[in-house]
């Protein structure tokens, strides 16, 4: 199929003179589209705040449950899952009520995918905790808050 026309031809020749044009197009489209394969703004640690946070799971006695062996996903997955679920409710991160609701949704999902019941695990309840990490006088300080709990039936 021939698609030649003088206007397209001139535009094509002009475009061919731009150095590293593929790089340029990727950069422009990445910032226009955001996280849509094959584009991304690669925001990994683009902002390094003074406080970091992570989430973990415990039983009714607040003993940590290893989530890889129990729920078959990594610690970072739990964090991202809560973060993305949160962003579906609000764009400003940190509201404790929304966090609690998202925590409950996450526990529901975890119970279904890992088939959690009194027959499969020995825990009576499973809790999700939020841990905030700061550096004070060159020492790590961690502040943990319970965000959701679900009884095992």
């Amino acid at each position, binding site marked *: 199929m021939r698609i030649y026309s003088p206007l397209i031809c001139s535009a094509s020749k002009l475009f061919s003179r731009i150095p590293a044009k593929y790089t340029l197009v990727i950069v422009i489209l990445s910032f226009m589209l955001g996280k849509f*394969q094959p584009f991304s703004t690669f925001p990994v640690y683009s902002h390094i705040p003074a406080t970091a946070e992570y989430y973990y799971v415990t039983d009714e006695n607040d003993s940590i449950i290893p989530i890889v062996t129990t729920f078959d996903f990594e*610690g970072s997955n739990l964090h991202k899952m809560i973060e993305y679920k949160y962003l579906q409710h609000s764009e400003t991160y940190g509201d404790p009520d929304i966090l609690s609701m998202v925590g409950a949704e996450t526990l529901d*999902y975890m119970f279904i995918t890992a088939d959690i019941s009194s027959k499969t695990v020995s825990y009576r309840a499973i809790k999700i905790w939020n841990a905030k990490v700061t550096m004070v006088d060159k020492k790590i300080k961690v502040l943990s808050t319970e965000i959701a709990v679900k009884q095992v039936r």
Partner: protein
Amino acid sequence: MRMNLQIQTYSFSEWKIMRVLFSLFWFERIGFILYSYSSIPVPRGWAQFIDLSFLTTVPGKVIIIIASLVCVVMYIRNIKMLLVTGIMFLIGVCVHTYQDSQALDMYNEVINLLILGHFIAFAQEAVLARNKGFGKALDRDEVKNLVIHYSKQAIIACYLVAAISKLTDAGLSWVVDAPNLSVVIYKSHMHAYIGWLLPEMKASGLYYSSIIANNSYLIQIAFGFTLLLESFGIIALKSRKASVFIGVWYVVFHLSVAYITGIRFDQFVVVVIIFMINIAYPLIKIRELYTVRFRAIRG
């Protein structure tokens, strides 16, 4: 001063080794993703508009694996490259979106952008062959060099986008705030700790975060250097040597980050080694050396 970013020349042997290494890596990633996950907990990107649930089923996974295998064989043998790279791109976009929807940020975009670069080069060849008004048709040699050129541009673009993100999100305070990395490192080690309940992960998190807290100037210098490296990766297009030089720095940077923080970006390391450092070149030289020695011994 005008920088001459011309297309570098590579041999067919180098291009063949690049194809073999890259396609095997691509196939391993696709296979690993399909094997590892069986649900879509957080639909992201295209998964919000397109139903990717077929990737959670065994027949869906098997079809994609077979299609990927056929593509890899054709890609290595350099057959119907426009069609093959187009299909590889579509498979990559679907499967990597599926992985992103596991609430993971793996940044596999670089792999798909690289294949898209291949596809554009082969499309350019097809268009120029049929429409003389756009310019001279490309021969096989030129197409191969253009594919590698676009591949390098894709990698460089990802680093440049990352640098711009840092500058737009945090500005130059990204370098000043570098010592905050200590809490981030502790967090990433705690992710490993809560996953497996390994006490040594908690201990190493405390160890590395204290190293950073006690060497804040050194960390700021390293961050400043990283930002420069990401921003001016385009220099790699100047010559083959420049490409190797920048590529080696990228790999050193990733290995250092992986060692200290445990955060790995294997996909970047692999594509940089294949297309920028060009591991094919020393492999070919070693083979030539052995061939010459073997002939000399045989007389």
